């Protein structure tokens, strides 16, 4: 029987599994977390034994039905706490199973007929002075802690960055009992309105959702300001105050507009970075913006490898699910899809384009940086060190530059600073991480098991 391996059990991966199962194939669904759902449907821990998860989970009932249908399916093998650390052409998928970052996890190699990558995205955060202080979180972290663990990151919180994602994050913070002092969208109103304004029918569904959030903000008297952002965080051993400033359309600071605000947490997100290292390992072609190129049926440039969700363009959960359904069906060898599914996937793409237009990253953001601002969090490379090394970019290869400054060479392997370093040094961002997730030497040394077992 045809076998399909799906990496990532978020909205895209679950939908892909569902439709591949419908098409009659054998599915192995992998996720690094103990539970399915990804970031969007981040579930409460089983141990919480929550009686009303739907009260904090967006679209809980539909998700719950989907996850049961998929995970309980006799042709579905569900592998939670499974980390894909390498992909070889074939595709051959190398995984370790066990506690995240554990030792002695079991090594497996999977060799499916088709592979669907639905690895999602993480917050992109631009550096600013003090962003490395404890108490500064990504927007996604604040949401994950509130929704997934019922932990509020602070009492006096500021939310800043760009994009509609700041709204559900704020809603989650409010629900968790934090006081949100303000939500600051860096783009000026004219940019946002121009981006969203034309062809409103493309975003009709989304608009209702956003309006819901706006109402919630108003009820809690949370100000939402455009053309403003956090340009610095200050504090001794943790954040104690932020500096807010007014921005021009290109995100350069309006001089004299700075003011400080006492806070105990800051949540920041300037959009998302797709997690494409596995796609790169599989040999998939990327767009200039770093997304996986997909064609008809969510096929990547590599035969037998499909991609769905945020790694093909940031467009949110419904769009990811629509793409996942298409990918699952085609990966399973299904016949050409009906128009409805395709139209849904296309609409998703239109939304992604719209989102990118309404919430671009302004070219003037580096004006927030000071010489001693850390740009690479892992290696503590400062803006001054990077600038000094990159004085004449022609004099050094990107790799030599990274070796010289250590930028991007720490444990996160440039996930956080990669796009920033590339932009500041006018070099190519690297998406290549041959070891996609850390693996212990002892685990690497083990002979891997094949799955399914070779008889």
């Amino acid at each position, binding site marked *: 029987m045809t076998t399909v391996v799906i990496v990532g059990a978020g909205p895209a991966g679950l939908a892909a599994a569902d439709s591949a199962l419908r098409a009659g194939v054998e599915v192995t669904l992998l996720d690094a977390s103990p539970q399915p759902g990804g970031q969007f449907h981040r579930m409460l821990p089983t141990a919480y034994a929550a009686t009303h998860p739907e009260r904090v989970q967006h679209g809980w009932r539909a998700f719950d039905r989907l996850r049961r249908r998929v995970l309980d399916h006799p042709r579905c093998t569900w592998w939670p706490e499974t980390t894909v650390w390498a992909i070889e052409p074939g595709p051959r998928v190398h995984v370790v199973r066990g506690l995240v970052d554990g030792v002695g996890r079991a090594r497996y190699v999977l060799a499916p007929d088709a592979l669907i990558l639905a690895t999602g995205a993480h917050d992109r955060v631009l550096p600013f002075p003090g962003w490395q202080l404890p108490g500064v979180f990504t927007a996604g972290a604040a949401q994950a802690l509130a929704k997934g663990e019922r932990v509020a990151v602070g009492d006096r919180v500021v939310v800043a960055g760009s994009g509609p994602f700041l709204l559900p994050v704020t809603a989650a913070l409010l629900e968790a009992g934090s006081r949100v002092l303000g939500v600051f969208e860096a783009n000026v109103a004219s940019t946002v309105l121009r981006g969203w304004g034309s062809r409103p029918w493309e975003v009709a569904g989304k608009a209702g959702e956003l309006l819901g959030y706006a109402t919630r903000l108003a009820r809690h008297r949370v100000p939402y300001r455009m053309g403003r952002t956090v340009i610095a965080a200050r504090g001794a051993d943790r954040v104690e105050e932020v500096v807010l400033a007014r921005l021009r359309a290109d995100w350069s600071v309006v001089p004299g507009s700075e003011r400080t605000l006492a806070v105990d947490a800051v949540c920041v997100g300037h959009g998302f970075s797709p997690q494409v290292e596995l796609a790169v390992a599989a040999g998939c072609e990327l767009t200039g913006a770093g997304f996986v190129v997909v064609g008809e049926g969510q096929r990547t440039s590599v035969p037998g490898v499909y991609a769905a969700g945020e790694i093909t363009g940031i467009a949110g959960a419904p769009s990811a699910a629509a793409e996942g359904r298409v990918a699952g069906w085609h990966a399973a060898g299904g016949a050409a899809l009906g128009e409805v599914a395709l139209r849904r996937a296309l609409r998703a793409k239109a939304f992604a384009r719209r989102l990118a237009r309404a919430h671009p990253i302004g070219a003037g953001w580096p004006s927030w940086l000071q010489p001693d601002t850390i740009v690479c969090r892992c290696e503590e490379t400062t803006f001054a060190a990077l600038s000094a090394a990159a004085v004449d970019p*022609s004099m050094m290869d990107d790799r030599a530059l990274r070796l010289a400054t250590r930028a991007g060479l720490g444990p996160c392997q440039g996930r956080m600073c990669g796009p920033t370093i590339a932009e500041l040094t006018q070099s190519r961002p690297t998406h290549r991480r041959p070891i996609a997730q850390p693996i*212990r*030497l002892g685990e690497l040394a083990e002979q891997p098991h094949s799955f399914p077992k070779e008889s």
Partner: protein
Amino acid sequence: MPFGLSNDRGPVGRTRVIVIGAGIVGAACARELADAGCAVTVLDRNRPAGATSAHGEGNVLVSDKGPGPELDLALWSTRLWPHVLADIAERTPVDVTRVEWEPKGGIVVATTIAGADALRAFATAQCAAGVRFAELDRAALADAEPHLTDEVALAFHYPQDAQVQPAAAATALLAASGAEVIVNCEVLGGDARELRTSTGVLSAELVVNAAGPWAGEVARRLGAPIAVLPRRGEILVTTPQPPTVFHKVYDADYVGAVGSDSAAVQTSAVVESTKAGTILLGSSRSQVGFDDRLRPDVLAAIARKALRLFPCLADVAVMRTYGGFRPYVPDHLPVIGADPRAPWLWHATGHEGAGIGLSVGTARLLRQLVVGEPSELDATPFRVDRAAVIGQ
């Protein structure tokens, strides 16, 4: 003697030299030739120090080489390195601290009785050639490398072994040369008078082929093919660790792999830490052309051998791997000298995994050959017109 700049050819300052390849060997050659008064232009297909020079540990080793011309070049290079760096520091504004020159010494261990016998014989022969080493007894070894396995049959300390940050070393040498650098410039063909490149036609009196693993292809395009092929090597990089490994430590079987002709994958344990706290684990050698795909089986083999030396690293996480291509010559000797078929063409390549260490000696020798100065080192074994390089 081959065509060169013998002193009676007039002021060398007028001699224009094009160096192909801005890796460490090209950079070192550019520095020496500029120092000799040449007007040097360095070309690179991409940008400086991005390929082989940025994909290795930065070895400056004598311990892994048996008696012979390569060891002589290595010993000379090892002596030259501190002088070259001091000279750069004195005469240029280039910051040489970023080169991270570290004469940390190497420790070679044999884990079997047979390996111990071979290592002792090897080291004794090296000693006659000028390599210094000292046997470490159990206590001394435990003191030098407390986390090393107990199952060591014999261990030698080689104080002359050192390490640099290779990409920084290459860019420092290049900056110190003051040479004009042309990036994203691929050589297409022609000769010194009319060197055709992807960015236009260049002209010079001499061309130095220092294109590393691509030197074979460059030579072919220039009508004078040489047998330099890529050989792939892989290194694992751990997350930053507290100090665990203090020298470059390797298994004596590494010596065998360096000299091997086999096209099959070979691995041997080479373990060392960097100033950034990461531990580098090597090494592998395989001839797969320029295929840079990840090979989990090769990585696993490297891990197994490294753990045999340092069992305590089993729980340490690997966060990165990098593979580089090294310029391989079938007889395992660098190619340094004038091309007998094209009087304007010189080669400086074929160092395989030792190019970082050998770069400064290679460049000094090339300069002496070009300028016609006497040399401390016999260049004959490295000559281009040997069978392994240009056939019969």
